Every structure is written in C-alpha cells, then in structure tokens.
C-alpha cells in the first residue's frame, strides 16, 4: 500500500510512512505551481501510478510530513506554500467576483429576446392574416406551430398564397420558435446563476423576479444597500418620476408586484404585503452580499407567516 501526497513541492508516493517510491517534482515558481495544483495533473499522475499496478490508499498524506521527507524544512514549507496558495486564491477569486454582472446581462438578453419576438410575431400575424384572417390563436408559440404545420383553409376570406409565398412566412416562424427555445435555455441558466449569486433572494422571490431586482438596482451590492421602501418601488421609475414632477400619487407598484401572492391578494391588502415583501428582500440581499454562502431560510418562513396573518 502506498499513500499519495499532493504538495506545492511535488507529488509523492510514499510507502511505509517514510519511503518515497515515486515523485513528480514541481517548478520553483509559485505562479506555475498554482496552475498545476488547480489543474488535474495530480489526478493524471495518480492514474499513471495505478496503471503501473501500484496499490494506492484513498487518503492523502500530510503535505508537510511529505516535504520533510524530501529534506525541505518546516520554514521553507510554510513560506513557499503561502506564496503558492496566494496565487491559487487570486486565480479562483477572479473567476467568481462580479457574477452578478452576468445576471444583469442575462436579464437584458431575455428582454431583448422578448422584444424581438414580439416585433416579428406581430409582423407574421399581419402577413399571414392576408391569407387566413380567421385563424385566431392568441398564444404566439401555438400560433406559429400551427402555421408551420399548415391549416385547412375552408371558406376563408383571405387570398390564396403559393407555396413559395407561404414559405417566406414559415421560415420566419421557425426562427422565432428557435428563439423561444433559446429563451428557455437562458432562463434555466439564470436560475442556476441565481443560486450562486443571490440564493436567499431567489428563495424568496424566485429566480426571475430576483434577477430583475438585481438588474433594476444595478448590482447585488446596490440592491443590498437599498432601503426596503425603495425596493418596493424598483421598476416603477416612470411613475416615481411623475410623482416627483407632477405630484401624482406616489407609486406603490414596483416589479415586486409580479409576485403571485401579491397579485392574487385583495387590492386592500396588496400594499401591506408589498411592504413586508420588500423588507424581507432587503434582508436577503444583505445576507447574500455581505455573507455570501450563508443560508437564511427563516426569512422565507417569516414572509410566509406574515402572508397568512395579513390574508386571514
């Protein structure tokens, strides 16, 4: 049986606690070592040993003890490992910081898709309407699928179109269906992204609304710093502007009114619910920004409890 050690100085195979039976030394440059340690060189090396028929233990050997076997001093070990791990952390942090910006771009991308879909579908409806004005299917996707499949056009007031004429329309329809698929894929991606970027807000609002709030605020940081009263009207900027300019009633409806519980509540209770909801969102955003990784399920529970009280 041999134990393996993965250290900043090299990979070791050690038999009987102190016999180095195989070794792959690493370079002296901390930056290079960092890249090797986060890559899969160690795994490759281990596989190589296995192929040679070595009987390898699952647990990884203490890296300092391994280094001592090679004649490296404790002081050297500590000094060098520190430089290496600083490089590793730099590489990894770089990958993670600013992921809320990806949320912003995804939300923007979805908006663009929706706008484009709407423009083109309206065109298709008008175009196809020349041919078959009686076809009434409100749902865009169903409508497009239907015209691609082709319809029996009996007793229509529309004009006849050749195969070629129709093909021009259905090509466009096919592209839009493709865009719907893309939209779904981005939504799935955004859902996962929100787990990473803002899990507590997501637990409370769902991925779409949570992402929308981050987009409206400009970043997770700004959302975390906004007071609940502003979160409540995020997305109602136009109405807010009018209110400030012309003294119209202050807006109570920001994007948080997309929440189903609030939408379905009696009108008289919506304001109260929106206020509570905004408070919990503010707390969740703070948790996600200031102590990332910390789960706060009690915020959802408190919100649910409050909903019951208000709707009673």
């Amino acid at each position, binding site marked *: 049986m041999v134990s393996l050690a*993965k*250290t*900043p100085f090299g990979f070791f195979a050690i038999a009987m606690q102190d016999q180095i039976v195989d070794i792959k030394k690493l370079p002296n440059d901390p930056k290079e070592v960092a890249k090797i*340690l986060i890559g899969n060189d*160690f795994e490759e090396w281990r596989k190589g040993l296995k192929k040679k028929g070595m009987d390898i233990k699952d647990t*990884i050997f*203490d*890296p*300092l*003890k391994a280094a001592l076997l090679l004649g490296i001093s404790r002081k050297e*070990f*500590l*000094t060098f*490992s*520190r430089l*290496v*791990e*600083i490089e*590793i*952390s*730099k590489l*990894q*942090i770089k990958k*993670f*910081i600013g992921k809320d910006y990806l949320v912003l771009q995804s939300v923007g991308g979805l908006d663009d898709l929706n706008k484009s879909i709407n423009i083109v579908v309206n065109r298709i409806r008008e175009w196809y309407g020349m041919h078959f004005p009686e076809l009434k299917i409100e749902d865009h996707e169903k409508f497009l699928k239907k015209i691609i499949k082709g319809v029996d056009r009996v007793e229509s007031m529309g004009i006849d179109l050749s195969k070629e004429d129709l093909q021009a329309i259905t090509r466009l329809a096919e592209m839009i269906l493709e865009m719907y698929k893309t939209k779904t894929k981005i939504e799935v991606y955004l859902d996962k992204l929100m787990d990473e970027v803002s899990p507590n807000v997501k637990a409370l609002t769902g991925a779409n609304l949570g992402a929308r709030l981050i987009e409206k605020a400009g970043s997770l940081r700004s959302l975390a710093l906004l007071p609940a009263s502003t979160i409540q009207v995020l997305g109602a900027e136009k109405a807010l502007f009018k209110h400030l300019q012309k003294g119209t009633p202050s807006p109570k409806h920001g994007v948080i009114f997309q929440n189903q519980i609030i939408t379905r509540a009696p009108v008289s209770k919506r304001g109260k619910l929106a206020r509570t909801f905004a408070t919990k969102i503010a707390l969740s955003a703070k948790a996600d*920004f200031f*102590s*990332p*990784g*910390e*789960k706060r399920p*009690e915020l959802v529970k408190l919100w649910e409890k409050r909903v019951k009280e208000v709707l009673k």
Partner: protein
Amino acid sequence: MTILKIGREIATENLVKGQRVYKERLTKRRGKEYRMWNPKRSKVGAALQKGMKIPFSETWLTLYLGVASGTTASHISDIIKRGMIYGVDPAPRVLREFLILSETRENLIPIFGNANYPESYRHIVPEVDFIIQDVAQPNQSQIFLKNAKLYLKKGGLAFVAVKSRSIDVTLNPNKVFSQFKREIETEFEIISERKLEPYEKDHLALLLRKK
C-alpha cells in the same frame, strides 16, 4: 506577552507596525505598538474578554474555518507570530480582503474553499495545533468534526463559535448549545465555555481539546 490588558480592554502587539486592519485604535505601551481588540467585531475577542483563557503559542499552526475578511485572524496573527493561519472561506468578496491582508502578514494563508470539503485543501494544510471555527452554518458540528478529524493533532485545541440562530431559529438557544456539545463530546473534551452576551446574541464559545 503579546496579549495585553489595557484597562477593561484587550489588545495585541502589532505584527506590522502602523497597520490598522478594521479601523481599530492603535496605542503605544512601553515602546511597543498595540492594536485594540474589539469584542463586538470578534468572537475570540469576546470570549477572551469574558474570561476564557486560551494557551496560545507563538508557533501554532492554525486552521481557521470561516475566516471572512480576517478581523479576528489579524489578532491571532499578532499572537502566533512564527506560526501560520490557514484561513478558509468560500465567499469571494470577503476572502479577497483577507488575501490583501495576507500579503502584508507572513503568517497568513488565504484559502478560497468550503469547510464542508476538508480534503479540498489537503495540498496545503498540514496537521495543525489549533482550529478556529466561526461559520454560522446549520451543520456546524459536522463541519467541525470532519476538519478536526483530518487536520487537528491529538491533544490539539479548538475554538468554536456556536450560533444558535444559524442552527435552528425556532429552538431555545440553550437547547441548541447542549445538542452541539453532545454531538462533539465523544471526540472532544470541553475545556471552557462562555456565552458571548453582551457582545453577540445567542452565541456560545467553546474551547475544546481533541481526545
């Protein structure tokens, strides 16, 4: 000694002259510079303030789970001088701050990692003399036991901050605390414990020794 009582407060001798890590006050005593240790910002500070005694040594290798931006770690760094602190945290923003601090102190190592997966930092962390855990997670005891098993030497010490609200908000904190103790007591001896009021609400600090 590097920990000093100044009136009712405590302070550590600054390892990096002139450096302030979290806007703490600096003060001179007998020609040496000290950093005041704010018990409201640090659970180890709070426990010491409440009379817990930790027999630190200047060569201790320390694994710190949930190091955050390094507020507490900076004082431990003052104390253990020639030792090393392996600070683990999965939150990129706070770990970045700890990384910047680590570049100024030769006994700090930032590890961007998750204490739920102790093997993931085995390439760098050797057997240690001391573990500090302050992760505020529901599965705190599990996280602690896994790490202690892999890294803490026999007879080694551990400081654990138990936050009852992170484990179960609905339970009485005392219940959560005794449950935590039961979960670790086969492997650990409890040397001392302190509630952290008035500095922290519903927190218990434990000093443990690995059997």
